[in-house]
């Protein structure tokens, strides 16, 4: 008889724990690991429909899966971390919107079908998580880049092309950098990828900072949107470096 109350207490505690923890809307077996690996134990992490990740339902090309992240419905986004639960390299990229909208579009490599998620940290320290499943036959992370088999990238490494569009809702900037973005998971081809990028306006004001990781696709192409109050954008400057110390430094005029 004295055992019953103890069982009841245990049951109540278990129920409380389960009730408090939000279930993963994407129902991924890896979510618990993601929570533990990517966020501090005491961090506040919430699933939030205001963070959207749009990808194709089925990816035609596992080496170039288009992803659009939008956390602009949240106020005061300090940083956005993008990750894929089932990739051998989980982190895809992180960006700090600074003066840009909390939105970014790019392409990624997927090794198998996986949730692709964005966690947006607002200035109050809370992480807001959104995501989507992308189905793919996979293999995107363990295939050599096309660049690694061609001498072309050596002469064009870190070459930038881009363009600025005026739109009623604010300027749009697209920037493409020639880089193999090798993951290090293809035999005898070491990891070689762009790590850090900063995009500034003509007055050296930072618009956005991007930390890229191996799963970003070869020859990365970033699409960012600026709020209407960022006017007078005659040109943008992009600076940064890859993990071998090669510098990116270019200006794209309107």
């Amino acid at each position, binding site marked *: 008889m004295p055992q019953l109350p103890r069982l009841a207490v245990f049951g109540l505690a278990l129920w409380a724990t389960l009730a408090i923890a939000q279930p993963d809307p994407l129902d991924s077996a890896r979510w618990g690991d993601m929570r533990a690996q990517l966020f501090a134990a005491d961090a506040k992490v919430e699933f939030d429909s205001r963070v959207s990740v*749009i*990808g*194709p339902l*089925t*990816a*035609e*090309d596992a080496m*170039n899966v*288009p*992803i*659009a992240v939008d956390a602009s419905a949240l106020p005061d986004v300090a940083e956005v971390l993008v990750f894929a639960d089932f990739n051998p390299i989980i982190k895809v990229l992180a960006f700090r919107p600074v003066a840009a909208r909390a939105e970014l*579009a790019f*392409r990624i490599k997927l090794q198998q079908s996986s949730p692709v998620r964005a966690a947006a940290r607002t200035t109050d320290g809370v992480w807001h998580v959104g995501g989507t499943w992308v189905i793919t*036959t996979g293999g995107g992370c363990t295939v050599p880049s096309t660049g690694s088999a061609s001498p072309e990238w050596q002469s064009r490494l870190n*070459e*930038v*092309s*881009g*363009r600025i*569009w005026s*739109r009623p809702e604010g300027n*749009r900037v*697209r*920037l*493409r950098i020639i880089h193999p973005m090798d993951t290090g998971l293809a035999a005898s081809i070491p990891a070689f990828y762009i790590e850090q990028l900063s995009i500034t306006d003509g007055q050296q004001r930072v618009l956005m900072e991007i930390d890229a990781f191996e799963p970003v696709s070869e020859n990365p*192409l970033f*699409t960012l949107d600026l709020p209407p109050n960022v006017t007078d954008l005659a040109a943008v400057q*992009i600076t940064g470096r890859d993990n071998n110390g090669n510098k990116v*430094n*270019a*200006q*794209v*005029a309107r």
Partner: protein
Amino acid sequence: MKRLLAALALIAYLPLAQATGFDYRLAPRQIAANTWVLEGAQEDFSFANGGRIVNTAFVVTSAGVVVIDSGPSRQYGEQTVAAIARATDKPVVKVWITHHHPDHFLGNQAFATKALGALPRTITDIAAEGKAFNENMYRLVGDAMRDTEVVVPTEALAPGIVELGGHRFELLALDGHTAGDLAVFDHTTGVLFAGDLVFHDRTPTTPHATIARWLSSLDTLDALPIKQLVPGHGPVAADAGPIRQTRDYLKWLDGVLTQSAAAGLHMTEVMRLPLPKLFRQMAVIDAEFPRSVSHLYPAAEEAALKPGAH
């Protein structure tokens, strides 16, 4: 004892039950003198259709049977051979493969290797990419692929006239859907076997497409005196309508990609663009349009961006 016998009988029967394999239910339909078509489903690859989404055909000449495309699997090829045997006792003398996509050549095992012919570029591409295609087909259609292996055609076909058993075939060496697209026009019957240069009421696929080249190939086909047109996918037609439909779609696709890149859209936005009503009637467009964006948009984007200054 009876039960034991029954169990033994069941065990003995099991391998037989498995060996029956996938039945494509091939029912050749005669569309012109000596000319039969095996029409595929207007679908994507699935376990249910066993990869039979393609049209293949055969022409019974007095010098033997000419087969156009061998289909998606060994079993499809074997069942084609059986269907031909029901129509004629003449042997298969030529198997012409229109291009290197898996649903068109993976039935090659069912035929004599020396009968298999294709354009030189198709032979090169089957040798290079065939194995990966085959593996992917196992993932897409499953057990219907059982025992299918790549057989590379041996005869390199040259464009021109082939007189065979009372039929005057013209081989046209074209490209655009892939780097090597063979079309076969039978001047005797007026039947054009267009391969995947022509789709009909089924959205064209573009994994190896060059649209400008494809449009130019369609102009070549449109100049032929066509009485019956066998598209690579979709129903047989009695006029050149499917050529115009394929051309209209490709021109629209090219235009929408160029305009989207010039307007600065990113790939996800382009994939979600609304589709014109005219093309919404084509089968599987909701799957094929985003696939085509994936294949073709990167080049359009590159062309729309300006070089940066250092």
